[in-house]
């Protein structure tokens, strides 16, 4: 441990690791545009191959006329359900934190899973419910499901572990809206700070841009402070530039240009007709192993059951062997007799 006094950060900051760079968000959930594209494409290919395989093993030749979704179509569907999360949060009057966290969970989940396995309409509910818990705004499952039509508790809970596992149990998210709040507070320290009414207007506009940015991939590419600065820049470019220069953040000023471009390009709502068409395709091409009661589902269950049985047998065999050899807890540790001299 460093024995330097905490009052001299300038001396020790070089040796210390910055907080954001230590977060799981930076380490595990930060990609380049190309990486995102490649990840989604590879994921889509792998799952299409797997599902095609399942179709074929069920009845050969049945997969030839199925139209599988491509990576873009999957992404579009997820985007629609991001909007659904926002609507749901408006309905429940959840705070900004819950909404943003739920959306982040949904995006991260579909970087490791495909919509053909897990339909976003269910995952969305689970992701949001998980977000209420991880952001300390818990709501009872009854009141949650009672306010959403055609939903029961198992729809939310069945996927909960899967979602948590796909997130690698990394629930902490650094959000852009908090960074925007911080920038906005800090602007009041600048000599060019506008009057209060103007400040309020800037904040509200920038907040709208933050909400739009949640429909895009920017949070998977850029740190939250840069996203917030870009949104502020969309609302009031001069103030954003003043503030960035006061922090000597020229890197950020370069980065926000591409963030602004991405937000204005990808921040639109997908058209309902297109998504409805995708959803119609999805009904046909979804993984039959995940449809409860189907032949493939039963076959998969049987396979899993057999594997589990084998595993149990192996474990029982190990235990029996150990018992036969003598002490089931292993041999007595030698040479430790004088370790407990702590009277």
């Amino acid at each position, binding site marked *: *441990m*460093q*024995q330097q006094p*905490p009052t001299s*950060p*300038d001396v*020790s900051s070089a040796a*210390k*690791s*910055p*907080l*954001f*760079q*230590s977060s799981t968000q*930076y380490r595990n959930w930060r*990609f*380049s545009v*190309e*990486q995102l594209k*490649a990840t989604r494409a590879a994921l889509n290919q*792998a799952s299409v191959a797997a599902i095609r395989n399942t179709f074929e093993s069920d009845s050969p030749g049945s997969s030839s006329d199925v139209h599988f979704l491509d990576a873009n179509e999957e992404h579009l569907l997820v985007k629609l359900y991001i909007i659904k999360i926002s609507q749901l949060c408006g309905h429940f009057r959840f705070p900004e934190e819950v909404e943003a966290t739920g959306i982040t969970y949904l995006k991260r989940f579909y*970087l*490791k*899973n*495909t919509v053909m*396995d897990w339909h976003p309409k269910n995952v969305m509910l689970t992701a949001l419910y998980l977000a209420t818990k991880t952001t300390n705004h818990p709501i009872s499952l009854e009141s949650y499901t009672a306010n959403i039509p055609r939903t029961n508790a198992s729809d939310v809970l069945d996927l909960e572990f*899967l979602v948590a*596992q*796909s997130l690698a149990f990394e629930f902490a998210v*650094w959000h852009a809206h*908090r*960074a*925007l*709040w*911080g920038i906005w*507070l*800090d602007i*009041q*320290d600048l000599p060019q700070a506008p009057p209060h009414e103007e*400040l*309020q207007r800037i904040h509200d506009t920038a907040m709208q841009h933050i909400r739009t940015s949640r429909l895009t991939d920017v949070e998977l*590419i*850029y*740190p*939250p*402070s*840069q996203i*917030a*600065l870009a949104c502020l820049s969309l609302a009031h470019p001069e103030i954003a530039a003043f503030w*960035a220069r006061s*922090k000597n*953040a020229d*890197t*950020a000023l370069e*980065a926000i240009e591409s963030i602004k471009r991405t937000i204005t390009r990808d921040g639109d709502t997908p058209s309902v007709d297109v998504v409805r068409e995708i959803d119609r395709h999805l009904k046909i091409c979804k993984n039959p192993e995940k449809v409860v009661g189907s032949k493939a589902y039963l076959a998969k269950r049987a396979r*899993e059951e057999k*594997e589990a049985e084998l*595993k149990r047998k192996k474990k029982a065999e190990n235990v029996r062997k150990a018992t036969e050899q003598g002490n089931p807890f292993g041999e007595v540790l030698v040479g430790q007799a004088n370790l407990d*001299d702590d*009277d």
Partner: protein
Amino acid sequence: MSTNRTNAASWLRGTTIRKGTTTPATRSHTPQTQTSSSIVFSGGVKDGSGRTSEYFSMDDQCPVCKSDRYLNPKLRLLVSSCYHKMCESCIDRLYTLGPAPCPVCGKTLKKMTFIPQTFEDLVVEKEVAIRRKLAKEFNKRREDFPDLRSYDDYLQEVEDITFNLINEIDIPETQARIAAYRKENAAFIELNQQREEAYVQALKEQEEAERRERQLRAEEIRRAEEEERDAREGERRALIDNLENSDADAARLVAQARAEALKRAAARTAAAHQAVFAQQQETMRLRAAQSAVVVPDQPHVPLLDGYYAYEDLCGLRSSYFDPASDAVRRDKEGIMRAGGYRVEEAWERALRYAVAGLDITPPLGEVSMPLPITSRVDADVAMASV
């Protein structure tokens, strides 16, 4: 039934029945007092002050005669030496004429061996009794052994014996072991008992000394108060005498006397305070001397970690224009915030977020693929194998 026979029977039972009249001399005329016993049952497990708190429950029922607290509110259950419960009247009935077998297990019991119950669970009762009894003789300490190993062996042996006695395994052999130990270590046992007694005695003496000191102090204070009262009385009288005899201005005299009285009172209080303080110091010193081990006072080192939290980039102002937190800040009673919530901390966190990672350049290209594509190869299979 003829009166004659009734009288004969009651004569046999050693009681007299007088219809219509009740005198305190008859012992068994009320159904509640079912005992004619003159024995005061004692024993059982005593607590620190030497009292036995008896276990008592509304569901008590005598296992022998099945009478319970509903039928007999004064039911008192006692425990035999074989750890079976019986009510007082059953004990009287069975054991007044001398030793008799236990109705449950058949062990021969005497009336005198019954003890009151302290614990709800009789197994605990038995264990505590056995441990107390053994501790009287197996009273060696760590200092009596050359090394830890032999002390552990000794403890193990005591525990073995205790276990055997509690669970009644190899009783004769265990008794023989105890006897052998007693014979071997007679001198040791005696010595340790003396040591124990000396320790208890020392504790008692210390308490006594403290008590005496407290008394002394109270006496001192009382005397001081008395003196003060006397002094005040004397001053008052002196003032009156002065007023009587002198020709000076009365108001001036009174003022002068008051000032003097005030001065004297102040001096008295200061002296009293000093005395009390000195006494306290003395007590503290004595106590410190008594506790031989001196714990050194380590200076407190706050937790340091290896993270940089952007301290140089974010300066917090004392106040901001912030409509979002207005309601919370205006709330003086703290109804809207949890205990310990400070809006300054929320601001500080936001400011940290504002500057966190400002200088990071976005990753480019497909160089690293941190997400293993295989991770989707059935997350639910992974789930099943967890």
